[in-house]
């Protein structure tokens, strides 16, 4: 289990740079195990910048890893809302990028 509070050393997950640290920790954890959980316990605040740099980046760079990642201990309703918002936007972006790629391949083959 990766505890965000331990990775960044704070109870507020605010900065983009802290999000990048967590992203790196997640990717690193998956090199050692096929099952990884990300814990939000102890966090008082979580910004979209932080989530974009951690979860959003993970979805866009490696969605299969995100699909295997367990998100736990985010009882704070606002954190839950932001996670939903960020992951939804990132998933949409991946779909759009996939669609654009499919179109490109189609026209190149046509």
């Amino acid at each position, binding site marked *: 289990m990766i505890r965000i509070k331990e990775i960044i050393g*704070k109870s*507020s997950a*605010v*900065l*983009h*740079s*802290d999000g990048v640290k967590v992203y790196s920790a997640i990717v690193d954890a998956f090199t050692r195990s096929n099952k990884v959980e990300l814990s939000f316990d102890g966090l008082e*605040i979580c*910004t*979209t*910048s*932080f989530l*974009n*740099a951690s979860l*959003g*980046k993970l*979805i*866009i*760079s490696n969605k299969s890893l995100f699909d295997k990642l367990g998100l736990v201990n985010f009882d704070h309703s*606002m954190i839950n809302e*932001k996670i939903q*918002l*960020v992951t939804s*936007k*990132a998933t949409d*972006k991946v779909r759009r990028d996939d669609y654009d790629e499919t179109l490109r391949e189609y026209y190149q083959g046509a």
Partner: protein
Amino acid sequence: MSEYQYDFIYHLKGNITTHPSGYKRITDIYFTLKDFKNKNILIGFKDLVWLDANLCALLDAVLFELTTVNGHTFHAADPEMIEKNFAVLMRNGFILDSDSNPIMHDDNKSCVRLNKFAPNEDVAFLNYITKDLLGHSAFSKNSLNWQLTEHFAELFANIETHARTIKPVFACGQYYPKQNELKFTIVDLGVGFLEPIYSHTKGEITSYEEAIEWAIKGNTTKTSETGGIGLKSLYDYCSNNRGYFNIISGDTYWGNSLGELGSRKIKPFIGTTVHLIFNIKNIKV
């Protein structure tokens, strides 16, 4: 020191309020002095009628730039007159004693003390927001404050992400109980809105006005991530609570306090300034 021992005397004049005209009066200090180096400058207050104290954030940012880049030193003229007419400047931390403490105690409890933070000092900034701003008597103690803290965290995170600077972030607020308003100003000395957005959109966005509106809608310059939701949240919060939200970047002063939502052209200063004007009476969850 007498006036004759200064290289330059700059007189603040008239009414300096949280409005494009007030922004101009303060940034004019920068434009007047930016082409000189290492001058000893006296700031005069005898012609000043009014200063919105939250604008000390912008004033301090201007003086910081002129001090660190141009090597100027600044002194305030006539301390007795300032104490009589503009005592708030001695209470809110703008004018300090030799030990870098406010000269006067904030007995009225109307100030949100002037402070500055490095762009990565999120913990210190949030402590300031929680204790100095939301801990202010103007805000009742309720669950609403948590939501506001989140919005300020988003704003600060935006600065770290987009401003591309290590220069401090300046913040200051002032409560006006008769108007049921608390005005809060945050200033960064970064690159402003246009440069990163112009680059990301490959030249599609070419003006500061377009860049601000693009950012407010929740767009992002990050190609490998999602982003940009935070600024919109803060704008929506202010609007929904009958408050005002202004962003000033480059040549554009943008916001919902200019009659209808709109923008004004201004002489461009460095970085970005955000004014949040909370309507204390109407704050609701």
